[in-house]
């Protein structure tokens, strides 16, 4: 995509002012780092960081059959989500292939908001709208109406709480608040393995919130640190670890698939769950020097789907699809890293916990 066609978030000038390095990502011009990925990573693990994730998409689902519609389209048991609740799901095709992974937020009885991956937003919207006519429901693209800031780290709640007009929602809950003078949605969710919140705010209020967060001491963090943080705690990334060609059981996401709800793809997911998948997404650490990367083959079958150097563990880490009989922790793997075979060891997920270090 040519640079002049890239979308910009409402915080574009803030990123430039903070020394952000802007790169194309999923059709957007996004900050990959400011001071450095490692510093930003550590800031989130030990203090508080703020990420502009305004490239994420939003889809509103409302109407008398909003819950029935989502129960049909999302993999989790949507009926178990209370008003003010948040729930992770995958969106599956009929054959169980993963179209996207996403959070749904129940804002009111028959009113939900879904947050999509930027690269999948148009596809998700078309998929949901194509299935909407069977239900009394409106499915509306709200991506232009929201910027999104993720405030993450052990100090995130205290920092945001001091700027808010009331208590923050617990983990996996959502509520309306005024933060730094701006009305917004506070979501008790994140993608770093740390406590924190995500703020969904109208684009014209985003800069005021961003400025207040930085003034209160939050470290601006880019997508580079977001990727290393999520990989240390083994959260899958769509386009790397999740794809239409593989299902949620293979990806280790069976916990958010409730086949009894009859969601689209449930039969295929059930069949894989019962028979056992041919391959599984495992976490690994390189045994020695080197860093495996997405696309590196696993000797004997399989492939690396994400890889980086873990800033907290100091070794190459990643996730890979491997034959199911190679998926147990402590299994030794060999990974072809650009022609050089590197030894790796299958590890339990997550790779990083507070107790690891």
């Amino acid at each position, binding site marked *: 995509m040519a640079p002049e066609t890239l979308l910009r978030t409402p915080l574009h000038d803030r990123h430039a002012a903070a020394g952000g*390095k802007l790169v194309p990502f999923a059709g957007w011009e996004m900050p*990959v*780092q400011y001071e*450095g*990925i*490692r510093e930003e990573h550590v800031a989130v693990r030990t203090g508080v960081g703020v990420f502009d994730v305004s490239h994420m998409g939003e889809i509103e689902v409302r109407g008398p059959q909003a819950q029935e519609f989502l129960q049909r389209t999302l993999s989790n048991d949507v009926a178990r989500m209370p008003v003010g609740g948040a729930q992770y799901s995958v969106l599956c095709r009929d054959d169980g292939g993963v179209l996207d992974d996403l959070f749904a937020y129940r804002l009111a009885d028959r009113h939900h908001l879904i947050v999509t991956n930027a690269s999948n937003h148009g596809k998700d919207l078309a998929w949901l709208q194509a299935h909407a006519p069977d239900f009394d429901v409106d499915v509306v693209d709200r991506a232009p109406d929201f910027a999104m800031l993720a405030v993450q780290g052990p100090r995130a709640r205290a920092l945001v709480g001091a700027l808010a007009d009331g208590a923050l929602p617990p983990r996996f809950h959502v509520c309306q608040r005024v933060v730094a003078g701006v009305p917004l949605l506070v979501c008790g969710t994140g993608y770093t393995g740390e406590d924190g919140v995500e703020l969904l705010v109208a684009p014209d209020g985003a800069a005021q919130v961003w400025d207040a967060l930085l003034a209160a001491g939050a470290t601006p963090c880019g997508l*580079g640190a977001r*990727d*290393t943080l999520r990989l240390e705690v083994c959260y899958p990334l769509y386009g790397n670890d999740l794809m239409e060609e593989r299902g949620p059981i293979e990806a280790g996401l069976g916990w958010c698939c409730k086949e009894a709800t009859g969601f689209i793809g449930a039969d295929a997911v059930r069949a894989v769950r019962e028979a056992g998948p041919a391959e599984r997404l495992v976490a690994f650490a390189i045994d020695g*020097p*080197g*860093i495996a*990367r997405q696309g590196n083959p696993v000797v004997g079958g399989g492939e690396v789907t994400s890889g*980086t*150097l873990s*800033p907290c563990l100091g070794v*190459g880490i990643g996730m890979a699809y491997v034959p199911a009989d190679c998926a147990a922790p402590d299994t030794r793997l060999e990974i072809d890293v*650009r022609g*050089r075979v590197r030894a790796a060891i299958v590890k339990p997920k997550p790779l990083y916990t507070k107790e690891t270090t």
Partner: protein
Amino acid sequence: MAEPTYPDHLRYHPEHDWALVEGDQATFGITWFAQDALGEVVFFDPPAAGTTVTKDQPYAEVESVKAVSDVIAPLSGEIVEVNAALADAPDRINDDPYGAGWLVKVRLTNPAELDALLDVEAYKSLLG
């Protein structure tokens, strides 16, 4: 090194490598521009001493957290020494790309190739 720096006494390859030529030997490294584009270098995978390198061909890899990049040989020769200190401190490539962050020393096999390298002004004009 926070500000762009390009020493006058080095010769430059358009793939953002530098060479310091002393007699029939040369020291190779990557430029400020290259290390800035990479971000923090976390791993340097050097070739072994004795390995032959060929001008314009990759001879090593440097990795940042985010990506891996080939390092291109600015001149041809045989590697006589690698910067062993980079194994434990690859971020020296960021902190001091023309000093402690040097990569390899090479005995040149075709010193005439030096004519094809850029001087500092030509390299800086390439960066725009």
